[in-house]
């Protein structure tokens, strides 16, 4: 299966999606520095958890390959196979020390017309929330960029990877939209697509008239709703109502890892956009947990 095949992603990966900051750092606009955090602008689908046949929530555990000893998360390191069977260990600090400035800052050195970015480059969107004591610099940047219909362009390093990013202002809110690097997008030639050939006029007219019948002026986002997700939700609701296949919450609290997504992304975004700090300290994933999620290709 080709490497860029994203159709085989297991749903369980999405249970890791917690509404916590993806990155925190500084937006540099000239000499103005604006502390921000990035939150995903997309949320996962309905997350299903893995249980055993009695309904007990299961936990992920690392084991050593040879003798199946259970391993603590901090026993795990990331490594790179530099030659066959020759692994080099990579520590987070080493990656960060490579380019400290770009690991902490999104330095907006140029502003481009929003319309000059071919949308095919947009990869993933994050909301920027202000982290400082005041929202003034945030509002100033958002307002002036939106007025000018320009996006700020920069590269920065997040979680051990280089990102090209467009900072876009819309409705007074700043978004960081990661862009694909030029060489990540295959050209039609690289794929080996045939050159466009002259088409039979009759066939074109037949297709045009069929297109006309289906043409609408406005885009209806309703058409993008996921029938599978809706059916799954209906099924869950029906089962909750009838009580079949429903296990009541255990008396003792479940380990934190197994508990459901209690905090909603929307809630977090609404509060953080108004500059309110989180009430509870955010759970910091262990080093290896972060390493683990970085070790695999970014889940899409």
């Amino acid at each position, binding site marked *: 299966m080709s490497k860029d095949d994203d159709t085989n992603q297991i749903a369980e990966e999405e249970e890791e999606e917690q509404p916590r900051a993806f990155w925190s750092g500084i937006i540099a606009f000239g000499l103005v520095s604006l502390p921000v955090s990035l939150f995903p602008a*997309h949320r996962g689908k309905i997350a299903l958890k893995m249980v055993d046949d009695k309904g007990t929530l299961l936990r*992920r555990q*690392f084991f050593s390959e040879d003798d199946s000893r259970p391993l603590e998360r901090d026993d795990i390191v990331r490594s790179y196979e530099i030659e066959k069977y020759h692994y080099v260990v990579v520590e987070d600090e080493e990656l960060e020390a490579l380019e400290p400035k770009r690991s902490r800052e999104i330095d907006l050195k140029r502003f481009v017309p929003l319309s000059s970015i071919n949308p095919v480059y947009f990869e993933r969107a994050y909301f920027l929330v202000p982290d400082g004591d005041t929202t003034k610099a945030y509002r100033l940047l958002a307002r002036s960029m939106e007025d000018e219909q320009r996006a700020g362009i920069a590269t920065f390093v997040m979680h051990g990877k280089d990102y090209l990013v467009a900072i876009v202002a819309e409705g007074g809110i700043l978004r960081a939209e990661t862009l694909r690097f030029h060489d990540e997008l295959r050209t039609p030639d690289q794929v080996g697509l045939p050159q466009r050939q002259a088409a039979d006029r009759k066939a074109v007219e037949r297709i045009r008239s069929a297109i006309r019948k*289906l*043409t609408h002026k406005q885009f209806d986002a309703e058409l993008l709703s996921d029938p599978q997700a809706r059916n799954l939700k209906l099924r869950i609701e029906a089962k909750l109502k009838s009580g079949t296949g429903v296990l009541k919450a255990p008396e003792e609290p479940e380990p934190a890892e197994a508990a459901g997504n209690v905090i909603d992304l929307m809630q977090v975004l609404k509060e953080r956009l108004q500059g309110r700090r989180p009430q509870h300290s955010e759970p910091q994933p262990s080093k290896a947990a972060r390493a683990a999620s970085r*070790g695999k290709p970014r889940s899409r």
Partner: protein
Amino acid sequence: MAVRAMWKGVIRFDSIRVPVKLYGAIEDRNVHFRLLHRGDLEPVHQSMVNPETEEVVPYAETRRAYVTESGDRVLLTQAELEELEPKPSRDIELLSFLPLHAIDHRWYDRPYYLGPDEDSADFFALAEALDEMQVEGLARWVMRNKSYVGALQLYQGHPMLMSLHHAEEVVPLEALKPPAGPALDKRELGMAHQLIEMLESEFQPQEFHDEFRDHVLEMLAAKAKGKQVKKRAPKPREPSVDLSDALEASLRQARKQA
């Protein structure tokens, strides 16, 4: 170096039927790391364990459950989950056609090139029609047990299927309120506009490349030869104290560099 087709389907709408092949448009250029055990650099694996008994539950014996906010678990049987899967099909069904850019890029997920399958005559006629009419199509299809929505559009003259996020996945902008606060200072706003204009340019994707990737590979090569690698913690920049002063100084600096 040609890329292999990953899927075959048939574009359908009205009486039109165009067989196509799908090709991934994204080249994976990430540095892939592997997780190892720190002590002996041996491979590791992950398994699911029962937290009460610490016993490993083989993947084939795992079941799925939805956990409610109060912690109740709704068990879903294998049969139920299979029943909820989309029906396999080769159809790429066009739901509607829209003026170009009517679908905002916030919905965009992943691009796939389309190429002709079997008879190519209608394939190029479709490209021609999309070109002449300046429209894009909204399509729905099922690929490997997953339902997709996508935009059928031209990229550099070639038909492309841009998969889109499902409606439920995109956080609605309308539901969020922008940060509030006292009115912005006109003078500061003027300076911010000026600074943006001074830093204005066109977007040239070729100008940027993944430098960090090169640096990571260099560092790893050095480390493999036994060289010491830096581990210094970077010093973060302080937030600006006075916005007006910072803007003024930025403008002076930008003028000097211009």
